[in-house]
């Protein structure tokens, strides 16, 4: 991930509640505009759900990557 500067990583692997998508929503509300946020999730569903939510609220999906037993979803707060 040398080419993307990540400002905040949330390791939500194994986090049943509130879960990775809620953690992403929390971070999107809390972090400053321009921040790049990475969520690590052991749920495959997050790799679909998080991009869908980002599109719905007009935030930027930077990258989704499968890393063996988990997924990395990187988003940028643009507004």
């Amino acid at each position: 991930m040398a080419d993307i500067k990540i400002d905040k990583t949330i390791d939500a692997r194994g986090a049943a509640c509130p879960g990775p998508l809620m953690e992403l929503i929390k971070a999107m509300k809390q972090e400053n505009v321009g921040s790049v946020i990475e969520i690590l999730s052991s749920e495959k569903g997050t790799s679909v759900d998080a991009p869908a939510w980002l599109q719905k609220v007009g935030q930027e999906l930077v990258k989704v990557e499968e890393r063996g037993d988990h997924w990395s979803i990187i988003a940028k707060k643009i507004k």
Partner: protein
Amino acid sequence: MPKRIVIVGGGAGGTITGNLLARNLMHQIEHGQVIINMITDKPEHIYQPGFLYIAFDKVRPEEIIRQQQDLLDPHINLFVDPAVKIDREKNVVHTKGGKEFPYDYLIVATGSRIVPEAIPGLKEGAHWFYDLPGAQKLREALKGFEGGRVVITVGVPHKCPVAPLEITFMLYDYFKQKGMLDKVELYYTYPINRVHALEPVANWAVPQFEKKGIKYEVLFNMEEVDPEKKILKSMEGTHLNYDLLIAIPPHKGAQVIEDSGMGKGGWVATNKQTLRNEGHNNVYVVGDTTDIPISKAGSTAHFESDVVAERIASEIQEGGTMTEYDGKVVCFVETGFDEATYVWFNYKNPPKPTPPSKMLHWMKLGYNRLYWLSARGVL
């Protein structure tokens, strides 16, 4: 020189940790080798899950409030004097009253608070049950409600993740008992793409919603309320008209955390196993204050307290321990006025809700009384 333990916060996490430490270290305290000081911002201790019942006139405020001093082991020194600055470089806590509390071990248990003001119009247009005045105000609103659409909406982040479902099912039973179901539309919204964070709970709740005629909308994050026109707007671009709006407002951590540069939003970076503040081996964090991606709930604080008390007592007595937090959370879930279920899970085991029963409801009501034993570190 005695080892000085300072606990900032007198909620569930701080109180249970303090009482367990006082019991484990009684010998050292009585011989002047350990001092435990607790700093808190109010003299009362409130059992917050009781707010839900106050909204339905099922519990009186005095049943959920005790004096903090009465809950504490007498070996703990209590100071009702809000912390205003935590200096982790000099290992000292400063209070509003101008006192300084140096520490060898610090336990940060400052909790979370609702911030309805974070959503424009929410304070003016919504009711909530996450503090005592809010629960009492909602109770009066429910008594006077003559019918229409009741919208339940959920802010992020929030504590007690099962409460939105609980209030929805209890509202259904409340209006059923009043013979008003034909005049009321219950409309539940939730921030993510299912009706609850826990997938098995969501899978159980949806058929219940459909059976009871409770409407729901997912991927709904409140953005703004128009209290004049009674419209709730979401970040996702949808609008909802309401006659009664019941919100779980978004939460923040304590101001002292942000003022001390300990974490954005008032959440402290915490190792999810050791519960140490990252980068500070003599600072532990319990309860809502942590930034661990886990439920902010009393039971989380309780199980974390067991670990923190064991770790600090062992460090003082034996030089260390292998005890770590496994992510355990246990939550009762009211599914109406006379039935409940419960879930338990940890970092490795997902929850499996059991079918609701009257027995579990009675257990929940029983725990509402037994909590005072938990706070004392007995249960």
